[in-house]
């Protein structure tokens, strides 16, 4: 199914512009506010075989986006223009099916608690365990719905949403139709005498169903697959507790080897915080919970639900892009603890400005499953290395799993601590240590034992004068596996409010293969003026994994010039 070809896309765009222009003549535009943004990322590619940079025949790639939103009173309409000429390396080549087009357009109006949207839209129910459509441009990820949505609040405290649509699949639409409904009750709004209560409670529930024709499959494929979720959130003074349970009916797909087992998952989280102290503990377990609107879809395509990684989202280069965890939607169980404590300023240990300590621990394992001894060769390949077998799998359930079973295989560990201290009004220092264990065979399909990595980071910020500052980072990663040890250094000179000059290098000095002990120097100049930002760089980019949430994109190595422009208006 074609979402939009070039002509249709541009027709939509030009009708939008024509309406604006003609409306301007007729003074219909009085009170209409038009605004938007622009985002461009361009990369030029040189040959560089030692770092494994792919050869790009076009020698360049450009991704560009323009959003335009027009609003007047209760009405809002918008379009997004996207172009890929060709897509930047690391983005799915299917974006290159069109050079330019309008994959996103909508119109909506809101009146007395009722909001209706027709066209493209994003939506999230609860934590997204059963439904979330969103855009993550940096990952080339956009599973927007194309259809219709209604949100309605008939009385205070009651919130209802319903939607129907197909999902975006690059320049096309996915085959499956998604129909979904969500309801939420906020008791403190609903019952007026509870409005000032210290105890705050809400509950919610969702139902999601997808339809996709069974096609010519020899299996008896369910064409309609239902799923649902229930959730609550409770707050009392400094405490809060929330939980969500999600369920999915049997849904044989390519990624679960066409088994007829249902899927389920839960997420629970408890938080306590007061001035200067905060702690959060979360637990999550999912089994066979990959929910897509096309059973044949792979990669990050056509997900209906969102299953983020239960681990810290690192920001320092070596900690973030070498061994980041990616959620295993077919089955995982995890725990995370996160603590922040600010040692009081003026105290002996805290110093004049106070010192902040952050601790984070995350642990993610397999479920121990009992597999059926199936004779189906397609499934048998997957079962080869499994120890336990059940009798023949006549109903094709694949395996038995318990959501609360803490399995024996380590998927991920991350123990990290960060200490942040301001020494005087012109100097700040931040130290980070992280120990990561990473199941590289599971996540990156590299044959290896688990990677054990230790990462040290020191970051300093020296304010030279009111407008001038220097920020620097020194990072060191040691590991006996994979590519061995790395060092990373960065110096950034800032001249507020317009200029930033950054020079960085990383060096894989510990690679067992001496030929691959390579430097990756990069220099970049950024100019900022209000909401315009322009950045020009040159250098080597290391192959790595760029993640947002639990979703990741492989970034291939590259050597060349980069240009990034963003603007909002």
């Amino acid at each position, binding site marked *: 199914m074609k979402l939009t070809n070039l002509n249709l896309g541009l027709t939509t765009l030009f009708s939008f512009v024509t309406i604006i222009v003609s409306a301007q003549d007729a003074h219909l*535009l009085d009170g*209409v*506010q038009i*605004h*938007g*943004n*622009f*985002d461009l990322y361009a990369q030029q590619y040189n040959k560089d075989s030692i770092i494994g940079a792919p050869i790009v025949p076009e020698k360049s790639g450009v991704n*560009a986006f*323009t*959003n*335009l*939103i027009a609003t007047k009173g209760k009405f809002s309409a918008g379009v997004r*223009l996207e*172009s890929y*000429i060709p897509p930047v390396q690391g983005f799915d080549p299917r974006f290159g099916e069109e050079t330019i087009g309008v994959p996103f357009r909508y119109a909506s109006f809101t009146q007395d608690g009722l909001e209706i949207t027709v066209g493209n839209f*994003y939506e999230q129910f609860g934590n997204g*365990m059963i439904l979330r459509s*969103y*855009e993550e441009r940096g990952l080339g990820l956009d599973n927007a719905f194309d259809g219709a949505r209604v949100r309605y609040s008939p009385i205070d405290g009651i*919130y209802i949403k319903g939607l129907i649509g197909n999902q975006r699949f690059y320049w096309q639409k996915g085959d499956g139709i998604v129909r979904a409904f969500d309801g939420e009750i*906020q008791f403190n*709004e609903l019952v007026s005498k509870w409005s000032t209560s210290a105890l*705050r409670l*809400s509950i919610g529930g969702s139902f999601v169903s997808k339809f996709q024709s069974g096609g010519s499959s020899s299996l008896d494929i369910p064409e309609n697959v239902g799923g649902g979720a229930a959730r609550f959130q409770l*707050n009392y003074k400094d405490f*809060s507790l*929330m939980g969500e349970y999600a369920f999915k009916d049997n849904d044989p797909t390519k990624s679960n080897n066409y088994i007829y087992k249902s899927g389920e998952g839960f997420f629970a989280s408890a938080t306590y*915080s007061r*001035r*200067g*102290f*905060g702690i*959060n503990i*979360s637990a999550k377990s999912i089994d066979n919970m990959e929910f897509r609107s096309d059973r044949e879809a792979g990669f990050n395509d056509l997900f209906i639900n969102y299953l*983020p990684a239960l681990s810290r*989202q690192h*920001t320092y280069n070596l900690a973030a892009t070498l061994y980041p965890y990616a959620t295993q939607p077919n089955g995982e169980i995890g725990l995370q603890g*996160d603590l*922040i404590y*600010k040692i009081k300023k003026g105290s002996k240990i805290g110093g004049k*400005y106070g010192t*902040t300590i952050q601790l984070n621990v995350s642990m993610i394992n397999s479920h121990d499953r009992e597999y059926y001894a199936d004779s189906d060769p397609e499934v048998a390949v997957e079962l080869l290395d499994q120890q336990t077998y059940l009798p023949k799998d006549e109903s094709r359930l694949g395996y038995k799993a318990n959501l609360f079973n803490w399995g024996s295989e380590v998927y991920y560990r991350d123990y990290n601590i960060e200490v942040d201290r301001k020494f005087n009004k012109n100097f700040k220092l931040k130290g980070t240590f992280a120990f990561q264990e990473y199941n590289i065979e599971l996540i990156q399909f590299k044959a290896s034992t688990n990677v054990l990595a230790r990462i040290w980071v020191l970051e300093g910020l020296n*304010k030279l004068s009111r407008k*001038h*500052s220097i920020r620097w980072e020194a990072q060191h990663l040691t590991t006996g596996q994979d590519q061995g040890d790395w060092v990373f250094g960065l110096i950034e000179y*800032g001249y*507020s*409010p317009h200029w*930033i000059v950054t020079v960085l290098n990383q060096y894989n000095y510990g690679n067992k293969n001496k030929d691959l002990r390579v430097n990756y120097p990069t220099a970049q100049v*950024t100019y900022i003026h*209000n*909401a*315009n*930002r322009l950045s020009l760089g040159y250098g080597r980019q290391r192959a790595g994994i760029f993640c947002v*949430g639990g979703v990741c994109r492989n970034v291939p190595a590259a050597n060349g010039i980069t240009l990034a422009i*963003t*603007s*909002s*208006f």
Partner: protein
Amino acid sequence: MKYILLPILFATVLNTGIQAQNDGRQIPAVEIKNLDSSPFNTGDIQNDGKPIIISFWATWCSPCKRELNTIAEEYIDWQDETGVKLIAISIDDARNIQKVKPYVDGQSWDYEVYLDPNADFKRAMNVNNVPHTFLIDGEGNIVWQHNSYQPGDEQELYELVEKLASGESIN
């Protein structure tokens, strides 16, 4: 190659063509969440005719935290002198949303903080990436915005806040 220029040209033409209309641009009304996850409508943002700073940030964004922690040290003075209110919009999604309140309390921020886990408000405000800071005048008009943060930027921001508070135009 000409295709590359098309969106740039398009954005530039509209950018300049509609500049005049932006002078009266108000904060769009979007349903987001309070820290206790109850709904909050951004159309209700107000500060009794005093200026408002809206800052988009995330727990995983270092420059965002640098900006908000820097301003936090001077925020009491800013409020006393100009009556300004800072509203911090966290765009953390389901992965990190549970860490927002502990972080905000842990750093003892006195800002109003809201959650925008599916980027609805971020999209409505046309934010490309964080940190992105807006300045709203006493009548609720968006009068200035700035992308990214480096040390010293907070001084420029505060000078603009002072101008707004004393009734001057900042353009």
